[in-house]
């Protein structure tokens, strides 16, 4: 049954909560909210306007996320939904929440270190293995199966793993 919008007292917090169910299809354990992909939610009378930002410019998952965000809000009974993309400020892996970092680790993806915008060109930081926490790891490839991942091997537990790149 479709509820009248006014009866639902649809506010921005309701939308934010609903968007917690939308995940990045390439990392299905974290939501677009926890990833810092959703930048703003505005409710104006019966219209909802969401602003998102891409993690990587060429990320093919962005279009899927945009469609799912719109669909999720429409399912709340809102017909007038717009999802807009912004590039400013550019997405930073520093925006990934602590809860999401724990989920990434449990998923086998080493979370990115917080860098405050300072990513050196030649220095590779020690990355802890998400399985055994050892920092005795080696980078196998700074590029991986998706734009946002690098490939490592743990010398301690011999487990290959991926890291979400700091960006």
């Amino acid at each position, binding site marked *: 049954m479709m509820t009248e919008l006014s009866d639902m007292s649809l506010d921005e917090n309701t939308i934010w909560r609903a968007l917690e169910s939308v995940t990045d299809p390439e990392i299905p354990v974290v939501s677009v909210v926890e990833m810092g992909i959703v930048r703003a939610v505005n409710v104006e009378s019966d219209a909802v306007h969401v*602003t998102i930002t*891409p993690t*990587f*410019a*060429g*990320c*093919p998952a*962005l*279009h899927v996320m*945009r469609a799912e965000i719109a669909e999720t809000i429409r399912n709340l009974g809102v017909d007038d939904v717009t*999802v*807009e*993309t*912004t*590039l*400013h*400020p*550019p*997405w*930073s892996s520093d925006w990934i929440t602590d809860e999401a970092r724990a989920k990434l680790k449990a998923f086998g993806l080493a979370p990115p270190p917080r860098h405050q915008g300072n*990513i050196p*060109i*030649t220095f590779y930081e020690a990355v802890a293995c998400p399985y055994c926490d050892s920092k005795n790891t080696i980078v*196998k*490839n*700074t*590029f*991986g*199966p998706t*734009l946002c991942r690098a*490939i490592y091997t743990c010398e301690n537990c011999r487990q290959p793993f991926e890291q979400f*790149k700091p*960006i």
Partner: protein
Amino acid sequence: MIQPDITAAAGLEALEPAQRRALAQKLLALADDELILAHRNSEWCGHAPILEEDIAFANLAQDELGHAVLWYTLLQQLDGEDPDHLVYFRRANAFRNVRLVELPNGDWAFSILRQYLFDCYELYLLQALSSSTLEPVSHVAAKMRREELYHLRHTTAWVQRLGLGTDESRRRMQAALNALWPYTAQLFAPLQDEGLLVDAAIVPAPTMLSEGWKDHVIPFLIESGLSVPADIAPEAAPDGRDVHTEHLSALIEELQSVARSDPDASW
């Protein structure tokens, strides 16, 4: 190609008509460079010497294609040009990329060195464009710059490794450098009326970029065991971006073949 629905680019409407034309030309050049290099990178997919590099070059292709989309989208906001039409239905001689990026991939040394030379140019360019007085340009550049750091990190490591590696790897790198070096001058050749954009601090002066690039690239190549060819004399200024090598038309034919086989198809 799926375009991001970028927030309407503020500031574009305030441009003078002559500036608009100069900017449209510049954006097309920037976008075409990215697109053509992305296509060359994608040709390594399934053919790179090791699996890691197969993956790396597929990533580079995807990144550069993402960057091309950003520039084409900005161009669309400026003058309404449809990016899909520009990419899939334009004739090869209407592309405005530099000849450096259209050259066939050659051997691995050639491809990695080309990528290094271009990445380094791009990093200096994007650093300067990040402080463009035109906000939409500065926003796009700032976004791309973070990703390009990874490219330069990767190619820097490879140039060093191959330049200082075996006799064979150094021989191939030197041959690649000798072949590529004359093509780099075109990266810094100003477009027609680009001065209008430089005066308005929308884009950096090409001479400034060229100096920064050379100060970075030349010492590094020497440290990597390579000898840098002599500079091209100023009187041998490169032809414009409307002049291409024989290799571009074959590339474009392949790039457009699927779209042209059914122009009305929806994807």
